[in-house]
């Protein structure tokens, strides 16, 4: 059983499952580094996933769907930015409100547009893998090649994009002017202000980027993985992404790697479900596993995480 369990496919599945988490987590990292708490990642993923499907169905073009997902995420995050940066609202309250708004909005529009609750119509064609190398044949080499193909070349575009974003964001955070100022904003915004860095503008940009990445994460869920939007389909992934961001110690690459861990848990969960025919363990038990892992990792494994010093504090000039 274990041999048929630990297949290359499991690892590929882990990377696929990690992708939406990683995108949202990196968005969370950027947002929180600027000093704004973002627990609305869940909502941003949800509207991205939904509007991706809606626009794809309406236009027949899945790429327009991806763009729509990003725009939807950005718009939702703009509300968060306005509330927490301009109005200096409590950022957790704003984030919670947006999550509820996203859930209600998608559920409501789904019924209005498609006339039935629970799920949208399915899109005709999901986004396919980038590469399509021939596999097959026999022998050791062919087997190895099929593994390589599965683990390296089997993915849809956003999966690769997520890896690129992790690396580029990491580089940008530590090597560019934008990154330096971003890190300062979340630690000591007044210090940044006194040398002429515009605190509020910087925070807006960071929050909007997190919205874009959250939307893209949603697009990956519906347009690449599932092909249909169902009610509350993110089911807590935004919060797992938030945990991945913390576990990754507020760095983009760290967020990606942490997401990979949670993605792996999700891949195992899916695999276990298919193995469970005939035994008595209820399916909910497996569904629970990634979340249990989050709790174990955050509570037990990593020790105390020290986030940006000024996180959650609205900035006010003297």
């Amino acid at each position, binding site marked *: 059983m274990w041999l048929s369990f630990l297949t290359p496919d499991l690892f590929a599945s882990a990377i696929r499952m990690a992708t939406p988490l990683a995108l949202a987590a990196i968005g969370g990292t950027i947002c929180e580094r600027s000093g704004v708490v973002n627990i609305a990642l869940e909502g941003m993923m949800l509207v991205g996933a939904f509007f991706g499907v809606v626009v794809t169905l309406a236009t027949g073009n899945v790429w327009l769907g991806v763009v729509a997902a990003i725009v939807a995420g950005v718009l939702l995050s703009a509300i968060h930015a306005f509330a927490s940066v301009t109005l200096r609202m409590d950022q957790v309250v704003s984030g919670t409100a947006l999550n509820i708004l996203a859930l209600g909005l998608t559920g409501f529009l789904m019924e209005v547009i498609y006339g039935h609750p629970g799920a949208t119509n399915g899109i005709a064609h999901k986004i396919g893998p980038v590469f399509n190398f021939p596999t097959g044949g026999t022998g050791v080499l062919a087997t190895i090649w099929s593994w390589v193909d599965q683990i390296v070349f089997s993915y849809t575009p956003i999966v690769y994009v997520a890896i690129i974003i992790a690396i580029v964001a990491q580089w940008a955070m530590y090597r560019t002017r934008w990154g330096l100022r971003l890190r300062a904003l979340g630690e000591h915004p007044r*210090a*940044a202000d006194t*040398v002429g*860095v515009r605190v509020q503008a910087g925070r807006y940009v960071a929050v909007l980027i997190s919205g874009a990445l959250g939307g893209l994460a949603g697009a990956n869920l519906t347009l690449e993985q599932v092909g249909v939007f169902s009610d509350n389909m993110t089911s807590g992934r935004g919060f797992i992404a938030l945990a991945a961001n913390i576990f990754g110690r507020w760095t983009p690459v760290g967020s990606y790697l942490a997401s990979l861990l949670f993605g792996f848990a999700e891949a195992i969960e899916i695999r276990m479900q298919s193995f469970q025919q005939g035994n008595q363990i209820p399916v909910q038990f497996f569904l629970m596993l990634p979340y249990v892992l989050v709790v174990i990792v955050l509570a037990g494994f990593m020790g105390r995480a020290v986030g940006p*010093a000024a996180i959650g504090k609205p900035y006010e000039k003297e």
Partner: protein
Amino acid sequence: MPVLELREITKVFPGVRANDRVSLVLERGEIVALLGENGAGKSTLMNVVYGLLAPDGGEILVDGKPVRIRTPREAIDLGIGMVHQHFMLVQTLTVTENIIMGHEPSRFGVIDFATARAKVRELSLRYGLKVDPGARVADLSVGMQQRVEILKALYQGARILILDEPTAVLSPQEVGELFGVVRSLVTEGLSVVLITHKLDEVMGAADRVVVMRDGRVVGETTPAKTDQVGLARMMVGRDVVLTVERTPARPGETVLEVRDLVVLDERRLEALKGVGLTVHAGEIVGIAGVDGNGQTQLVEAIVGLKRPQSGSISLRDKDITHAAPRATIHAGVSHVPEDRQRRGLVLEFDLAENLILGDQRDAPYARAGIMRTRVIDEAARKRIGDYDVRTPSIRVLAGNLSGGNQQKLVLAREMGRDPDLLVAAQPTRGLDVGAIEFVHRRILTERDGGKAVLLVSMELEEIMSLSDRILVMYEGRIAAEFAAGEADAERIGFFMTGGSKKDHAPAPQAGTAVAGGGGL
């Protein structure tokens, strides 16, 4: 032509005229001290110059040209740099990152760190501000961080440097170094505004002094034309006794005895590494030291706010090592905490309520769990009179009092309990000259009344003028002990900065370095 001229600057906050037609002139290559008590409007004025506050009236001229400064960026572009009292440094970033932020050498947004480091090194050499460009700011001492702040201003091209209370956090040696640096900046053609309320700094460092009181300029002079007493009179508006008059102590029996005390800080590192000390009745023992060398943990352990790892604390032979604050109060320990707003008072409570904190369960203030308002108010009125707390009524909230009156309130409560031991941490921090005088006299009165007093202060002056014995703390140990009048600031400062570890002391005749700090 002056590099900076302020004409009739006015800044109004709701209910207060923080600056009332303030004018000031700064010439090239000059150090002007802006002297005044807390709340006199010095920092407000400089925040206006630095673009952090918008003035309600008046004019600012830089190099003779009228300018409008709306943001710090505009101030920087005009060559104005400011080192704030609370450093504007990002702790998690490196020295270089902090210095270049806002003016990063970069191409297409990518920072050229090699150039940045080279520039920082060059500036640091030119002005004698030694600092490691790659170090994380969080790992630097306070004095070092201040250098980074000055370098930051220089990097941004400051010709006018505003230093806001720069010595508040420094050891005497660091103060000396700082003023050395300031001198060299001035010879290089910079102009410096030094905001301070310390008279000795003004006398030692400034070319000219502008004195502010209640938002107005009340006088201008030079150190040559006046002395500290004259400056104090201008600053406060009345005669002030600067030196505390004290009689020799007549120590009685041992009240507090601390042995081999080890206390961990919040990072679980040893903040106290085996401290021993005794305080006798009728004696003031002063703890000198740079902030963060274990003084806070020592105080917290004695008053029961922190659990010692090992060692013992006893009060009149009664063990209070593990006593909770409530038990230590009952045992006869009173505590004037270093942060009166966070620990000394409940700012949302009125004066009467604040005055019985800690005694609220006990007679005569409570009976069977019910507060006796009449008794409480009566006691409150009496104490407020005794301690000269200026307030219209005992129903005023503590948060609405001035700092000096808040501190008097804390003293009134803690001393009113008639303790055996008074632990006073930074009792005059942030107070003006008049209030400091009051607090000092009060502490001496307690001593003369036979109380044991443990005084912790960053202000060496205060320690030296009040203490009968002085202990110097360095890195969690007692590094040296001096009798009153035995040591000068320089010798104490030497041990405050870890001097005992080096080969020789500057003047070996006085003072005993206590090896390991254990047995006193």
